[in-house]
């Protein structure tokens, strides 16, 4: 017993020393990553905002933990009209938008420039959403108030849609299948809608082979369309087959054209001799409402220097579009589809209001693109 006591004391002392070392050494390490703030979904604790990086980290940790009171209190607001509820909605979404179903999984903040009293940081937010990971990049300004740094929040709150009556007189197609009992054979036949592939282009990318093009509904009724592609080798064997999944406007109204894109991850076209495309179209009930205008479309660059097509979606109807989905076909100067890209808009598109969107384009194609065609897929809770 007497011999065991010194060993216990040694263990306790060594543990205490290690704890002290850990606390003192860990802090300079995180602060010393030359302005880089990284954070995953692991819980942590906030400390004083002595540096812009620390202030940003504290703010984003609070947002991630949904600690709205503290996050809102730590802001330097440019508009005193901003309420905590509005600030919260900016992060948590509303009206059944994609952001409502998302969570902030990780973030990454890098300083753009800093002085003694001001700093600019670029924040990359990684959201986990039902449609896959979504990356959101924001440039945030920080200012020093006393001995503390604060995030300046200058985003204007989303305007509330005023109460109004929007007449809706667009068409709707219902499907009446009729009763099979007692019906004569052949008397209730309704043909599937006629859809046609307008173009097809297969390219190799770093991620794999991509088959893309456009499809049109040539019929006078709405069609639910899916495009399948099958890769065939020189011996006539099927290598792989995939569908367009969500990279297509599934419900095509009469004479409507949609881009489609089919990805074959980790596949090279070098092995492929033929690509077989087939469309499956079925008759579905549909509505021509809501009409969504795609305004101010412009090719440019985002904050990170990526080539993007950006613009605004304008909901011209009286129905909320919960999750707008933008699909774009890009054409070269011969009118050939050279790329199809898509992106989800994180906030719901309210009646008679607009939301910005941006869809990325591979840098190598940015110079080739002469024209583009944007369609908007819409998921509305009222319709589902």
């Amino acid at each position, binding site marked *: 017993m007497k011999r065991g006591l010194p060993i216990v004391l040694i263990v306790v002392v060594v543990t205490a020393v290690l704890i002290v070392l850990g606390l003192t050494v860990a802090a300079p390490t995180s602060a010393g990553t030359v302005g880089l703030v990284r954070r995953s979904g692991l819980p942590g604790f906030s400390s004083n905002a002595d540096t812009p990086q620390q202030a940003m980290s504290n703010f984003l940790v609070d947002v991630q933990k949904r600690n709205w009171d503290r996050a809102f209190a730590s802001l330097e607001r440019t508009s005193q009209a901003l309420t905590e509820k509005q600030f919260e909605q900016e992060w948590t979404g509303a009206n059944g938008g994609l952001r409502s179903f998302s969570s902030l999984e990780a973030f990454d903040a890098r300083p753009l420039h800093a002085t003694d009293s001001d700093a600019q940081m670029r924040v990359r937010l990684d959201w986990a959403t039902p449609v896959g990971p979504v990356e959101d990049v924001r440039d945030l300004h920080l200012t020093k108030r006393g001995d503390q740094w604060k995030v300046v929040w200058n985003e204007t709150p989303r305007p509330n849609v005023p109460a109004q009556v929007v007449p809706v*007189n*667009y*068409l709707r*197609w219902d499907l009446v299948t009729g009763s099979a009992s007692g019906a*004569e*054979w*052949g*008397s209730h*036949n*309704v*043909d599937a809608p006629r859809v046609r592939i*307008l173009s097809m282009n297969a390219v190799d990318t770093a991620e794999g082979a991509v088959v893309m093009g456009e499809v*049109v*509904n*040539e*019929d*006078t*009724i*709405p069609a639910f369309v899916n495009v399948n592609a099958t890769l065939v080798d020189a011996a006539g064997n099927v290598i792989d087959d995939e569908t367009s999944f969500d990279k297509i406007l599934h419900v095509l*109204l*009469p*004479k*409507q*054209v949609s881009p489609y894109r089919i990805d074959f991850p980790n596949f090279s076209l070098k092995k492929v001799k033929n690509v077989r495309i087939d469309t499956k179209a079925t008759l579905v009930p549909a509505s*021509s409402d809501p*009409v*969504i*205008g*795609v*305004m*101010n*479309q*412009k*090719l440019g660059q985002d904050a990170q220097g990526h080539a993007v097509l950006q*613009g605004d979606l*304008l909901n*011209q109807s009286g129905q909320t579009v919960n999750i707008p989905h933008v699909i774009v076909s890009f054409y070269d100067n011969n009118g050939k589809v050279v790329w199809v890209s898509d992106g989800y808009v994180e906030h719901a598109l309210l009646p008679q209001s607009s939301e910005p969107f941006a869809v990325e384009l591979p840098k190598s194609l940015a110079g080739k693109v002469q024209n*583009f*065609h*944007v*369609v908007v897929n819409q998921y509305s809770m009222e319709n589902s």
Partner: protein
Amino acid sequence: MSWSISTVWKTLRPGFWVLSLAVSALCLTVALCAQDITLQAPSDAVAGKAAKIATTGSGSAKFYLLGPSTAVKRDVQLGQDIALAPDEVQSAGRYVAIVCAGSCANADFFVAPGKPVSLVFLVHPSRAPVGKSGLISGVAMPFDEYHDLVLTPAAVDFQLSAKSGTPVSHAVETHDGAAWFRISSGKSAGPLQITASMNDVVARRVVQQVASDPCNLRIKGERTAQGIEVETDPVRDCDGNPVPDGTIITFTAKGGDETSTVDAPVKKDVARARMSAKGPVVISAASGVVMGNELRLGGQ
């Protein structure tokens, strides 16, 4: 005592001889008792109608009848007619009648379909764009009341009547139980009623003739306080038929390096859209693969 094969054979040989003699005697008895049975099958049996099979001989026998959807077994008296009930010969086709009494005899016969009571009439497509050559086709097949395909050649009268225009009639004789036609779609949109008739049996189908692709798509527009209001002239195909409501017209406004697009549905022959652009713009319209005119509007 050893159990070699020769030992066993020597022991059992007398018994085998007795058994062989008994079997031979039984076969001789059966052969002497067997009768010469003949069956006379009906030559004009019709589906669903009673028929008779004449037999010769005497005594009882087992009767078997095998047909396309029939299998019957019952006791019959030889020398009497075997009555076939209507429900035993409902399906047209080849039947085999077998009678067994000691020996068996069989006879084949055919049951013909009855009188046509229904026409299966298939018409394709259910929607046909106007002015398309050889697009609409139909096939009629007569069936009797037991759903037997009537193979006897018979004339089917196809009548086509559109909303505008006089009805057209076309008689076609069935061949192997089918009569068919192929025609071009008309010039006017609307329902095309197609009737197939055979004696007093009639079947009707309707093909919806719809407008073809838009033709001469023209737009007009003006600046308003809300932006640019643009609308099409009434959208019609090349035969003057208005395109169905809901047809999508894509309006595109290009000004500087910015583009705005709206996919607007046609309503009461016209598609309208509201667009936003401040500077001079060029507005165009398209429907599917059909392009319209361009409209130039100056800046605000």
